[in-house]
């Protein structure tokens, strides 16, 4: 693991001493020779003691160089010199650039205004060539990835992550094996996964994931590296065209070279490194495909078995069809069973036992078809065939199972029906009754509202209760004379008063007063169950007072009776002759009674 730190190969560090303000302002590129259209990074670093913030530097106008993106970061370094602690902060501004013209180029000085002063970097020269050295690896060769550059850590060329495929052009369903390898020439510590790769358009099966750092020596471009296989995965393309595997990223803890005597052990710094995207060209499978092709690409065998060959009580058989082999076995679809007269075949249950064996994906996919005998008899499960594409021979191959015989008994349908015997009709089969025909409107059958039902039940119970009350009332009317007189008193009084009003309207005053007398005597008699017609006025007064009628009401009743008597028999003695006023008084006193 331990390793002597070495300077970066491609990094050109060109410091520019700050003229004032106690800061360093430097510019660097990750490579001075770049490929045409390739990416390289320019890093502007602002370093200073107790620096808490730094303005973004001004990038000069770049001729024939495109700015693709930019980012910034901050790091702090603390050191003790002669007992004095020094806290140094560095603000790094990283620009991703791309050169679009061949030949030598110069990145002009960058400008930073800080602390009232102006700081400039040295110009940087780069050379743009047709293809960058070490890039564009052939299939099977590692493709070095990009590393986040820190000027203090010489990562580039010394630490990178590659993604390599065993083939770049495959057919749909054919396996591509991908290796992710970390190459290192630095002192590194922990390695952690920063971002898993994305396999858009592929079905992936894990072959290997590194669980410990087991390095081996590898030589790349004449340089020796410690190589660590980080991940190995089998990919099965599911669509045609140019599919791209997105990069994987790792966080690697790198020990920075010592800067001075007091920094003799160096400082660990976490660096993010990424593999490069990997393009795979996926071709369609050759046409025409066999009819029984079920998506299998690889090398497979097929077998079948029955869980029993004799069903005694109509129990179902289970036919298991196993597809085993190497390739995209997980993606193989269920084989089509030919119809078996008398056996109802249901959808299968699918089980998989798939694992990595070396660089290949091997396993078995089982389809368990329940088959229900519809009638007693002997059945033959025919041969099941399946075709697959074999990449080795670049052709389709067909495999098949052997037919299996079985016998069903006890299904209860072995004997023909009596109808068939008598009429000669032969029942060929049964099926469900067909669907209901089209409708112009589809009635929705809603449930009965509980509120309406409850109201109906309560009303019905109320009806029964009311009838009981009515019955009780009628019985009491028949048996209780006082109650009966009381019950009809109001009605009779109203009737008599209406008769009196009618007589008054006809100016039959004597009859009017007689009717009033009858109304008053009748009503008071009915209310208190008194025989008022046989009573004198004194007896009436005493009887009403005895029944707790207020004294003034009793006096008013007697006065009314007197007035009516005078009006009928001695009209000359009458002082108050207004019959309408008398009628009002009668109504008022009867109301009080």
């Amino acid at each position: 693991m331990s390793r002597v730190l070495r300077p970066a190969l491609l990094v050109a560090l060109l410091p520019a001493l700050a003229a004032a303000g106690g800061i360093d302002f430097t510019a660097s590129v990750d490579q001075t020779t770049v490929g045409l259209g390739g990416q390289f990074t320019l890093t502007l670093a602002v370093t200073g003691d107790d620096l808490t913030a730094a303005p973004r530097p001004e990038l000069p106008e770049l001729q024939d160089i495109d700015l693709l993106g930019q980012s910034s970061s901050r790091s702090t370094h603390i050191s003790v010199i002669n007992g004095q602690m020094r806290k140094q902060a560095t603000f790094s501004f990283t620009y991703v650039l791309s050169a679009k013209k061949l030949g030598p180029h110069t990145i002009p000085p960058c400008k930073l205004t800080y602390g009232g002063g102006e700081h400039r970097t040295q110009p940087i020269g780069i050379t743009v060539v047709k293809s960058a050295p070490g890039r564009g690896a052939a299939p099977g060769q590692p493709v070095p990835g990009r590393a986040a550059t820190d000027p203090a850590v010489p990562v580039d060329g010394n630490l990178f992550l590659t993604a390599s495929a065993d083939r770049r052009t495959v057919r749909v369903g054919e396996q591509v094996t991908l290796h992710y390898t970390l190459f290192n020439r630095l002192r590194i510590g922990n390695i952690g996964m920063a971002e898993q790769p994305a396999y858009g358009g592929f079905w992936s099966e894990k072959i290997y994931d590194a669980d410990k750092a087991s390095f081996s020596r590898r030589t790349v471009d004449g340089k020796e590296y410690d190589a660590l296989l980080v991940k190995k995965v089998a990919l099965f393309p599911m669509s045609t065209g140019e599919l791209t595997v997105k990069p994987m990223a790792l966080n690697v803890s790198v020990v920075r070279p010592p800067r001075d005597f007091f920094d003799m052990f160096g400082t660990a710094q976490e660096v993010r490194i990424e593999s490069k995207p990997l393009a795979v060209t996926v071709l369609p499978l050759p046409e025409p495909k066999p009819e029984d092709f079920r998506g299998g690409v690889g090398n497979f065998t097929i077998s079948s078995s029955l869980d029993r060959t004799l069903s005694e009580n109509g129990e179902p058989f289970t036919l298991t069809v196993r597809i085993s082999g190497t390739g995209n076995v997980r993606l193989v679809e269920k084989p089509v069973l030919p119809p078996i007269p008398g056996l109802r075949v249901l959808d299968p249950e699918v089980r998989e036992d798939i694992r990595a064996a070396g660089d290949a994906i091997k396993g078995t996919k089982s389809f368990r078809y329940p088959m229900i005998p519809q009638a007693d008899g002997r059945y033959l499960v025919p041969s099941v065939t399946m075709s697959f594409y074999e990449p080795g021979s670049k052709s389709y191959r067909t495999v098949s199972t052997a037919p299996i015989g079985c016998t069903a008994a006890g299904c209860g349908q072995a004997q023909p029906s009596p109808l068939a015997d008598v009429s000669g009709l032969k029942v060929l089969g049964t099926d469900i009754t067909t669907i209901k025909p089209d409708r112009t409107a589809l009635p929705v059958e809603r449930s009965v509202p509980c509120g309406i039902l409850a109201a109906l039940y309560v009303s019905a119970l109320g009806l029964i209760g009311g009838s009981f009350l009515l019955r009780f009332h009628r019985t009491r009317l028949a048996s209780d004379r006082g109650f009966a007189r009381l019950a009809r008193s109001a009605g009779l009084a109203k009737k008599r008063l209406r008769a009196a009003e009618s007589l008054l309207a006809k100016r039959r005053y004597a009859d009017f007063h007689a009717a009033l007398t009858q109304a008053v005597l009748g009503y008071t008699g009915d209310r208190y169950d008194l025989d008022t017609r046989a009573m004198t006025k004194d007896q009436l007064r005493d009887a009403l007072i005895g029944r707790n009628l207020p004294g003034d009401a009793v006096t008013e009743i007697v006065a009314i009776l007197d007035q009516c008597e005078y009006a009928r028999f001695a009209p000359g003695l009458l002082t108050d002759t207004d019959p309408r006023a008398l009628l009002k008084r009668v109504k008022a006193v009867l109301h009080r009674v």
Partner: protein
Amino acid sequence: MLSAAPADAFNHGNALYQQGDYLGAADAYHSALQAGPSYDALYNLGNAQFKSNQIGRAIASYQRARYLRPRDADLAANLAFARAYRVDKVPATTGPVELLLDRAFHLLSGREAMLLAAACFVLTALLLSLLIVFRRRALLYLATPLFLLFAYGALTAGVWHAYVKSRPAVIIVPEVSALSGPGEDYKQILLAHDGSEALVREARGDWLLVQLPGGAGGWVRQEAVEMVFP
């Protein structure tokens, strides 16, 4: 299809069914049912599911249709037909009396039974009221059969209510292992297959305790089961 009128979706489903697109037909019938329960749509949905080899789902649809219209002979035949296609055979344990009672109390749908009971109760109450007031024996003779009809309707409605409350369900996956507890780590105690009818006794998270005919049961995942009355 969602915005189409229920009758249009139903007729579209019929057209797809006739073309042999049973899954498409089932989708169309589902759309028709979004407006509310309809006997014809549930019946046809059951047929489409049966034709798509979804025995359990078909049985659940037929059961829902039976709740709405239990006297349809076509429905009874199709339900029996679908049940015959199940892997798990259910032994016939019902006696003739039980069978007769079962038929008697499933002549009417739950809705019809509730309406019959309510109408007969109101009429009985009316006749009883007249009897109380007028004391005519003929009213008693009229009220008695009405009361018996009310009792029949109320019992039938009660039977349907108890059936719904028992939370009937159907297994809808080809095969499911019933476990001794609500979790994958529990022991497998029985295997049930598509179309097996069960009662849901308890629910815990994603797991249901189902009881199969005969009393056996176990815990299965919710997605393996379709409730007849969700």
